[in-house]
């Protein structure tokens, strides 16, 4: 048995940690128990920081020392395979920054906003405890496993540890997940830009700006990323400022005023071209802009929350935990746990934790900071998004996030319905908010991005007041979210295209060549059609799309997390460390239970896709038309869409069950074996390699 070296804890450090624990417990008690009077966001921030610190120091270190047994004296892949490009031993702060920039996306900003309909408490608790016991464990363990296996990818590790078939099944799930992710994220943009000439104009401007940056980087100043990003940023800010003029001039506004359907088609066309064109022209420069803007905006949000210290206006627990909520249907269990995915636990991260990051880590001793710590940072972003959403007037929140089918299309009607729900709001308040942010209406702008943008605009406005500044901040927030979502969409389309070309190459060899224009266009079209189908379906959905598609996204994402945690569980047993099997095992079981329950409720029962399909079928047979369908063909379309969604849900469930079976089989075999059977690369002492190199 390896021995574990742990330093005894000093008295001073014991006192400090006891203090942090007491402060954290007090803050958490205030957040959880205070009723009837508004709670200040600072309590949540303080409670989160205390929970994260304790989780990082104690649970993270426990996993490091006992479960993964990270060994600072062992040479990592970056040292063993150093090629100066992909495998480079890198400073831990640089790796941390890179890892965080790679895992932080739209997810942690959107999910908590949607979950805010249940009040701030359920979301806060799930983010805090989810990240400490599930999300950060997943990221850290996958990173630790990958570092021990030549920085192999998740798919590769699954094939090695669970068998080749399990690897194939997981890869199929990954492709499906990616298509759903792209569709849902694109839908968030569609929802934010529908009938918003200002927003549409500034987002459209990012295309010529990116082209300009691409040409500049290619021909004038090759590789000057910082310089070109500053130019890009200045142009972007100008486009937001000029957008106000566009919105105020009806003749110009008409050019940028689109309904959801047209926007969906525009995005599909955009995804196609961005992925077919050479990367340096459009894709890469947008990527640079969005990466920097993302980090900058997260910092801005943090500053805004710290200085504005808003009161939370949403109740701690709203009546919608019973499953009747307008934002998404379904009860607290399991739907809260799939709605907030990124932020608590996100399967997507396991791809990054087994991608570039393990190739850069210069020492195993730094894996906890990057893997566990990086995920805690992401959870903090999710907490901030939750604060931004719950510090809004609940009436405003629900008017933005409820579908038109429930609240109608006029402020008067919306205010009446929402007031009936117990969140008293006047039509005037809704109109004024719309006016403040420079839009004509805020009704039914679901998808999280606009809500977060209003929240951010109000926070920033309260610390930096100024006339019309709120409208500027709102459109800034919309632009930044749209920018990085669109970057995900075009980069994702490109990755999807390569995956599809791989498959097509099996049928007809020449199609595989990424240089071939025919193969390129064909594979891109298939990829765009796959996510475009779901996007278009969401754009015409009677319940606004997000309501229908977000659960599908949540199920898929948590399914991938469950798979990653199952891998970690199996490897723990294979290493004969089965006394720690519950560390990855409990979150794995929890996610399996959540995804299967949510999947089942979406398959059969009152809120299922099947029930929706049945409703429309019955209406069709009775010769009726149900909104938003205006003719029989549209009725048929909705029925088909719901059946497709139901089928996909069923497939995801089947996938989870299959992976479960593979894992249990591998675990039983490993449990019976008397020796470790995991496929770890042999230990090479760091000192031997370093002395050789120098």
């Amino acid at each position, binding site marked *: 048995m390896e021995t574990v070296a742990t330093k005894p804890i000093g008295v001073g450090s014991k006192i400090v940690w006891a203090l942090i624990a007491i402060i954290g417990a007090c803050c958490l008690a205030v957040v959880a128990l205070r009723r009837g009077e508004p709670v200040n966001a600072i309590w949540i921030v303080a409670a989160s920081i205390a929970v994260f610190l304790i989780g990082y120091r104690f649970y993270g270190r426990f996993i490091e020392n006992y479960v993964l047994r990270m060994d600072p004296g062992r040479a990592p892949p970056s040292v063993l*395979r*150093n*090629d*100066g*490009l*992909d495998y*480079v031993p*890198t*400073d831990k*702060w*640089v790796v941390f*920054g*890179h890892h965080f*920039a*790679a895992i932080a996306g739209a997810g942690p900003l959107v999910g908590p906003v949607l979950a805010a309909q249940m009040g701030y408490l359920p979301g806060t608790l799930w983010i805090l405890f989810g990240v400490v016991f599930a999300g950060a464990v997943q990221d850290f363990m996958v990173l630790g496993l990958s570092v021990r296996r030549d*920085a192999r*990818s998740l798919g590769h590790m699954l094939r090695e540890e669970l068998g080749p078939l399990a690897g194939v099944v997981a890869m199929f799930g990954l492709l499906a997940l990616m298509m759903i992710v792209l569709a849902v994220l694109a839908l968030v943009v569609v929802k934010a830009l529908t009938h918003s000439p200002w927003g549409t104009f500034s987002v459209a401007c990012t295309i010529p700006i990116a082209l300009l940056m691409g040409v500049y*980087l*290619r021909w004038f100043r*090759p*590789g000057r*990323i*910082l310089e070109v990003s500053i130019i890009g940023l200045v142009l972007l800010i100008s486009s937001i400022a000029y957008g106000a003029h566009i919105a105020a001039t009806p003749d110009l506004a008409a050019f940028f005023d689109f309904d959801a359907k047209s926007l969906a088609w525009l995005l599909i066309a955009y995804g196609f071209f961005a992925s077919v064109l050479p*990367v*340096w022209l459009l*894709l*890469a420069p947008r*990527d*640079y802009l969005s*990466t*920097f803007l993302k*980090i900058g905006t997260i910092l801005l949000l943090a500053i805004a929350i710290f200085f504005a210290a808003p009161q939370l206006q949403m109740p701690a627990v709203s009546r919608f935990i019973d499953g009747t909520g307008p934002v998404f249907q379904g009860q607290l269990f399991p739907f809260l746990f799939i709605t907030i995915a990124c932020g608590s636990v996100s399967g997507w991260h396991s791809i990054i934790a087994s991608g570039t990051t393990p190739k*850069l880590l210069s020492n195993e001793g730094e894996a906890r900071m990057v893997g566990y710590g990086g995920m805690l940072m992401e959870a903090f972003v999710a907490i901030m998004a939750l604060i931004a959403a719950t510090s809004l007037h609940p009436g405003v929140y629900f008017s933005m996030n409820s579908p038109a089918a429930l609240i109608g299309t006029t402020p008067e009607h919306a205010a009446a319905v929402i007031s009936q729900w117990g969140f008293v709001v006047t039509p005037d308040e809704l109109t004024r908010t719309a006016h403040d942010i420079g839009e004509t209406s805020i009704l039914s702008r679901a998808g999280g991005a606009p809500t977060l943008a209003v929240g951010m605009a109000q926070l920033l406005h309260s610390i930096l007041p100024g006339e019309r500044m709120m409208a500027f901040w709102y459109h800034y927030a919309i632009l930044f979210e749209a920018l990085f979502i669109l970057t995900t969409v075009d*980069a994702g389309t*490109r*990755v999807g*295209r*390569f*995956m599809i070309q791989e498959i097509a190459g099996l049928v007809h060899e020449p199609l595989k060549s*990424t240089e071939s224009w025919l193969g390129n266009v064909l594979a891109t079209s298939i990829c765009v059609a796959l996510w475009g189908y779901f996007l278009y379906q969401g754009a015409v959905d009677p319940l606004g799309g997000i309501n229908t598609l977000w659960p599908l996204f949540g199920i898929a994402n948590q399914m991938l997390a469950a798979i990653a945690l199952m891998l970690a569980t199996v490897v723990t047993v294979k290493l004969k460390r089965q006394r720690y099997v519950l560390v990855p095992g409990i979150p794995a079981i929890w996610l399996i239970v959540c995804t299967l329950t949510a999947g089942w409720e979406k398959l059969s029962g009152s809120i299922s896709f099947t029930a929706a399909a049945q409703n429309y079928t019955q209406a069709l047979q009775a010769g009726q038309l149900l909104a938003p369908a205006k003719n029989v063909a549209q009725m048929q379309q909705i029925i088909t869409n719901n059946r497709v969604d139901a089928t996909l849900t069923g497939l995801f469930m089947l996938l989870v069950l299959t992976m479960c079976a593979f894992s249990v089989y591998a675990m039983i075999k490993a449990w019976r074996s008397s020796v470790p059977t995991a496929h770890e690369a042999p230990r090479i002492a760091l000192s031997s390699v370093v002395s050789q190199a120098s």
Partner: protein
Amino acid sequence: MNIALSKLWQRLVQTARLSCGVPDYDVYVAHLRTHHPERKIPTYAEFFRERQTARYKGTGGRCC
């Protein structure tokens, strides 16, 4: 103080570039000089273009 600041700035630039998929050029050049003295050292522009293309190749590991 100045040295500490310039080191911090270097680290920030390195992080920012790495987040865009561009690793440290100096490190690569040093690596080539030590381990592959026979290879031609690319200019920063060439290096940048190669990395830019490599970043969006989808999955697929490479080795030197």
